[in-house]
């Protein structure tokens, strides 16, 4: 069934090479996008919990904006709109980035900042799930608010939210496919291109689907490993902020709220 993938294309490659290039872009986008999302998300998530009203409002505004605009629209804003509204030279410079980088960078920024808003909510949930005594104990020891966050609150909160972050990892790798709308030839786009070139739609989409399934499995298993490694002994994970699963009530201490039964 997958034989056609090993046939020669017009440009002297094999169709499977097209798929693998697509996979490369998908992975690059998901991997680097994830680290942007994680860095920004942790900062914004902390911002939502601090005493300073102004910072908290700013963080909330960030989350509201990035969560309530569809990711495809955000993609268009970064790709089409941003170069137009930046002052002349800078905008032109952005437009002149050669393909495929010209689509890769806007897609990377878009996915990173979009996912960051979701991670920020998870981080906030993790911080709020910590008992108040932690902050009070840190105060009693004379730690400044900054040191309290750095050494007491954030490390514990991050260990609590690993299970909920799993659904964000799955989210970002699935959302990479949206980049095809701004011309990045990632996995789904390559599958469509193969189906148009060979008329073997079933094979082309089937291969892409298999690859996505394997990726989902790897992402899920590695997050499970991370969770097992960093789980605070005797703790239950923080509630998933985005899908506040009822599962917590059902199975106290279950590894994951729903969302993750997906790939079992």
């Amino acid at each position, binding site marked *: 069934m997958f034989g056609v993938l090993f046939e020669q294309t017009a440009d002297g490659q094999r169709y499977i090479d097209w798929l693998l290039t697509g996979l490369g872009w998908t992975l690059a986008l998901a991997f680097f996008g994830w680290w942007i999302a994680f860095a920004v998300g942790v900062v914004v998530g902390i911002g939502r919990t601090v005493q300073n009203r102004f910072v908290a409002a700013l963080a909330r505004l960030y989350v509201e904006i990035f969560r309530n*605009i*569809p990711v495809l629209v955000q993609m*268009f804003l970064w790709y089409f709109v941003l170069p*137009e509204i930046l002052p002349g030279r800078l905008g032109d410079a952005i437009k002149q980035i050669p393909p495929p980088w010209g689509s890769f960078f806007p897609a990377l920024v878009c996915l990173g900042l979009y996912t960051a808003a979701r991670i920020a909510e998870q981080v906030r949930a993790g911080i709020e799930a910590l008992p108040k005594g932690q902050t009070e104990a840190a105060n009693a020891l004379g730690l400044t608010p900054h040191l309290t966050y750095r050494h007491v609150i954030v490390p514990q909160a991050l260990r609590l939210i690993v299970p909920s972050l799993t659904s964000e990892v799955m989210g970002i790798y699935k959302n990479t496919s949206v980049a*095809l709308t701004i011309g990045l030839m990632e996995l*789904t786009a390559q*599958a469509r291109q193969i189906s148009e070139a060979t008329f073997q739609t079933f094979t082309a989409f089937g291969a892409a689907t298999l690859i996505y399934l394997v990726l*989902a499995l790897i992402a899920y298993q590695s997050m499970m490993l991370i969770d097992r490694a960093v789980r605070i002994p005797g703790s239950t994970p923080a509630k998933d902020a985005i899908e506040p699963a009822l599962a917590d*009530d059902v199975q106290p201490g279950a590894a994951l709220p729903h969302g993750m039964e*997906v790939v079992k």
Partner: protein
Amino acid sequence: MNSLDFSILVQAWPYLWSGLLFSLALTVAAFVVGMLLGTCFALVQHFELPVVSQIVRSYIALIRSIPLILVLFWFFFLVPIVLGHLYGNGRPIPIGATWTAFITFGLFEAAYYSEIIRVGLRAVNKGQFEACQALALSTFDTYRCVILPQVIRVASPIILSQTIILFQDTSLVYVLSLTDLLGAASKLAQLNGRLVEMYLVVAMVYLAISSAASQCVASLRRRYALGGAHR
């Protein structure tokens, strides 16, 4: 940098409005189909019906691990073939992008809603089932009158949040060249060249609708939390 000119909106509005109506219609249809089908899926798994429940479980796992755009492509290709086998002589029956979108979103969302309801079903106190048995309710009546209403009520904030995500996801029908809100804007942008204004307006409309809806869900959740019906 050209100065922004939002006066073109006056002309563009009727077309954008019809696009928005399409997005909303798709959301509502996918919600109804998704909830009905999702409830069936959840019940099938809850009763652990042999074979069917394994099939449903793999369907849900599959749908939830591949991107929606790929699912749209799959259905655009598969549905005519399946229909051809069902109703015709095996020749594919083309159904067009609009029907593809409605069918795909209904079936796709069913996978997500069913997970929510399945977890909700597990959260129902065992005593509820036992009380129904004591009252000699039939299985059908137990679920229709006692269990499902509670599940829907407990899960309603999550179901509504999922529906807001669904509304945002309908913008992906852009890949089928349909005229939803974003599709309308992008077609107009190609005609009049004012793509900056068009995409900014679309982003504002989505932002306004989604954040208003999330505020409602949040207040619903707060009110529900005060009621303290569960936990």
